[in-house]
């Protein structure tokens, strides 16, 4: 029985991590890339292109982080904090 429960738990864990990697991962990638495009000391079009090119590296790194970390809950929380913070900065930069 223990074995069955642990495998169900493992599956749930995998599904949750896939969700974090895909949905949160894409949002965080976008948010960080936008922040980068606003901060890079280049002219606007160049900064946009450069950050867009780098976004794929950010995403790849993030997915590896999600699947390698010990605690799923902590991964989720940390990711959420990064997302909220970067989004807030973006909002400030774009509106102010």
């Amino acid at each position, binding site marked *: 029985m223990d074995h069955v429960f642990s495998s169900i738990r493992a599956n749930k864990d995998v599904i949750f991590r896939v969700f974090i990697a895909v949905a949160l991962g894409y949002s965080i990638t976008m948010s960080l890339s936008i922040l980068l495009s606003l901060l890079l000391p280049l002219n606007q079009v160049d900064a*946009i292109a*450069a950050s867009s090119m780098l976004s794929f590296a950010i995403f790849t790194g993030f997915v590896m982080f999600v699947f390698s970390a010990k605690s799923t809950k902590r991964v989720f929380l940390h990711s959420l904090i990064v997302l909220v913070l970067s989004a807030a900065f973006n909002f400030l930069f774009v509106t102010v």
Partner: protein
Amino acid sequence: MKSGFRQSMAWLHTWTGILVSWLLYFIFVTGTLGYFDSEIDAWMAPELPQNTASVSASLNTANTHLNTYGRDAKEWRIYLPLVRSEPHLWLRYQQKNADGKLKNISKTLNGENGEELTHRKTGGGQALYRMHYRLHYLPKQFAYYLVGVFTVFMLLGLVTGIVVHKKIFKEFFTFRRNKGASSWLDGHNLMSVVSLPFHLMITYSGLIMFMFTYVPFVMNASYGFGEENKQHFFDDYYQRGAPNSPSGIAANQLPLNTLYQKAEAVLENHNDSRRAIAIRVFHPHDLNSLAVFSLEQQSPSDDGAKLILHATTGELYSYIPVYQGTRHVHSIFLELHEGMFATLPVRWLYFFAGLTGCVMIASGMVLWTTKRRKKALANPDGLPFSFKLTEGLNIGTVVGLPAAIAVYFLANRLIAVDFAHRAEWEMHSFFITWCCFIGYGCWYSARKLAAVAWYRLWLSAGFLFALVPIVNALTTHRGLINSIKHNDVVFAAFDFINLVAAISCFAIALLVKKHRLSPIAHKLQHTRQKEAAV
């Protein structure tokens, strides 16, 4: 999660790998062939003669044609038969139709006499190459996104694969023969590491190729949402459109040949050894008309050259040797991916690097089933469905795709030249073949006869490739012997490479027979003899 960083990466590598391997294999095979797209184009349009016209003859032809039919055009584009991607003089311009509306015209001409060149309807090498990012039958945007997702998986597969192999160099030089899964693993590693820089480059640059589709929000954050804002950004970034506006005052324009010579003089002054290969004339026969010359590419970092002359006087308007800023970095990625700069030896290097990619993916697929076969066969309820499906898809795709390509070539020769939908049916025949191979693979896998399917399908693929030069010789005057006689390198090489492909397929079939079929047959015979003795 699995304990340890490396273990969790190994898990991620296995599962992301097998999930996307079939489509990735398709992308790699068709993309690899794309490095010879123009050569395949030529073979699939055997009516087209080889170009014999010189540059100045082609320019004269273009000048006469455009001054006759392109007087009302907003823009002329002249592609000279100088590089492998443009085997014939190609003109694009606009012409007024019966309602007085401008209509886009595209014409391929014989550079010597200006006659229009026509050929059988075919997708050619372009259709094969286009499938590696656009797929087929699916809506365009959806296909782009799908390929993008798979490319991200590929990137993840590569990066996690690197992490998994802590002793990457030691493992690179390890090859355990005839050891089942271990041999496949070693082969998989060999193929991956030998062209790892190529794989990383091609995957990352593939994503960059469509970055404004995959990550549009970076651009949206500054330019806003919607089609109009996107076009605005593209105008800014790609600097599209005419560099100036027409004056409305008619003026006589210098002949294209004269302009070309003036452009050559400017290039010589700037010590630029590249040749001008295409000309865009904005607002022809206007006082402000400009001729924009684009230059051939000799290295991955020299894209974006623009030499602009006043078309009425031939004076220099501007000269930019390469792209500037981030666009330069961007263009290097795209150039490395497309390899437009590649000379024939480098092109072959690209081709073989692409092939190692195909073998890397295929060996990964086989490895997945090899590792799980023993357990699947021991399952008391018969083979699990997932195993049967995976194995069937593996067989049908690994062998089926090359076979489908052979059928695509055969269809080009066998479908009647005047059949209205022949280009579409070339494509259909490709996918029908692939489906048949998958069906056969699944059917045999379900009956635990995967080895038989591998053997028979490799044999059939070999026969199909061997048929290509034979059918070509029977249906056209440009068979292998004639091509060699007339020094027709592209046609001779095409037929020859199909023969090489056929021999390779037969060789693989024999290997399958030796390693997978004979032991089974031997064992069966042995048990039968035993039973008979009892």
